[in-house]
């Protein structure tokens, strides 16, 4: 397995429909978190890495859909309802929960280098986690760009747009939670993919 190949496959996977189940909730978390988009997306990435490693290394995970849906719903509530006074602090558990839930729903399409990693992952220790993080850096790169774009946006624009983003992102997260509970999350993401492809 080549490290550059693995990284390139990660970036390539960001353009594939198989990764939408990670990117859609990730973007929704970033939008809903408003001013806390950066910590929310970073926490989301950590959640994805942790749960996908547990599953793919055959060490755990694979939770029932209702629990995954609950994770998404709690993340939505944490970001929209001021249960924790500071939004940047609420964004961290919300991002972790949503990231873990997304990783549970993720069924990746696998190229040669990522395939080799997955074949070896149960027998690898920390190096497997590091290599998976490298791949996911590419896969989740659009979310990194989203967080950076948020940081680049002037404050007066953010003040006007953030309430709209929060509604759009929160609605998407809540819809995904309901669809997951009903076993229809693939259909929801598939429809988003078809609309974007059309």
């Amino acid at each position, binding site marked *: 397995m080549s490290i550059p190949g693995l990284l*390139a496959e990660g*970036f*390539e996977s*960001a*353009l*594939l*429909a*198989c990764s939408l189940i990670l990117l859609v909730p990730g973007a929704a978390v970033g939008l809903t978190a408003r001013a806390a988009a950066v910590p929310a997306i970073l926490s989301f990435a950590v959640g994805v890495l942790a749960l996908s490693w547990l*599953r*793919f290394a*055959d060490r755990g*995970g*694979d939770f029932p859909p209702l629990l995954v849906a609950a994770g998404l719903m709690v993340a939505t509530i944490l970001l929209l309802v001021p249960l924790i006074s500071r939004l940047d602090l609420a964004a961290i558990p919300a991002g972790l929960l949503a990231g873990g839930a997304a990783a549970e729903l993720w*069924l*990746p*399409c*696998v*190229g*040669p280098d*990522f*395939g*080799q990693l*997955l*074949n070896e992952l*149960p027998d690898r220790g920390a190096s497997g986690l590091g290599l998976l993080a490298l791949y996911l850096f*590419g896969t989740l*790169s*659009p979310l*990194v*760009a989203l*967080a*950076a*774009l948020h*940081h*680049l946006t002037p404050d007066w624009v953010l003040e006007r747009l953030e309430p709209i983003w929060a509604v759009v992102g929160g609605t998407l997260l809540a819809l995904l939670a309901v669809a997951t509970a009903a076993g229809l999350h*693939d*259909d929801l*993401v*598939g*429809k988003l*993919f*078809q609309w974007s*492809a*059309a």
Partner: protein
Amino acid sequence: MNWSRFVAAVLVIAVVVALVAVRFRPDEPSAATDAAIGPEAADRAATDAATGPEPGATRSITGGEEASTAAIAPTTAPEVGPEAPPVLDGKPELTGLDGWLQSDATGLASFDGQVRIVHFWTFGCYNCKNTLPHLQDLYAEHHDDGLEIIGVHAPEFDYEADVDNIAAAAVDLGVTWPIALDTEKVNFRAWQGRRRFWPRTYVLDQEGRVRFDHIGEGAYDELAATVQYLLANGA
């Protein structure tokens, strides 16, 4: 200029450049174009519905399924040399299928005595499509010697679950072997456990035991060696 904004700008540019670079990598099929096969296949399916399928597209759908317990899949790809490929855990079956395309099979038992490649795929999956030329080469070379490929189609999205779309994609992609319709992903889950991926390739020997298991693209030489060994030496 604010340093954090400078770093953010560099990050955005770096991500865009990386995505454009992999998107337009030379000598590679376009991921984005390939990923859009769903709507294209849907259009072709609509044409087929009006005019009938293209010649060579067998559209027989049978609803048979095998009533036996699916085994948990093995997890390691064997290294195949001059020695026999190892027997991995499990002797899986196909259960709960929605039918077959391009075959009158009722389950794995319909192919008893043959070496079987069981290929989990879905037609919208870019990496699955990359494996097809290698499977086509093996099929052309060894089908008459006793090799059968069973494409277990486990859709991700609802348009990939449409039988007309699957049939149209099979014609388009040159998939001529039997396709088992695993619409509810019963076998996708049962064979792969919590390590579920597209594509995944198994080889079953003449007695139905798993002799090869590989996740993703690649390992084509090992796959061919396993098939050739089993065809030459039996289970």
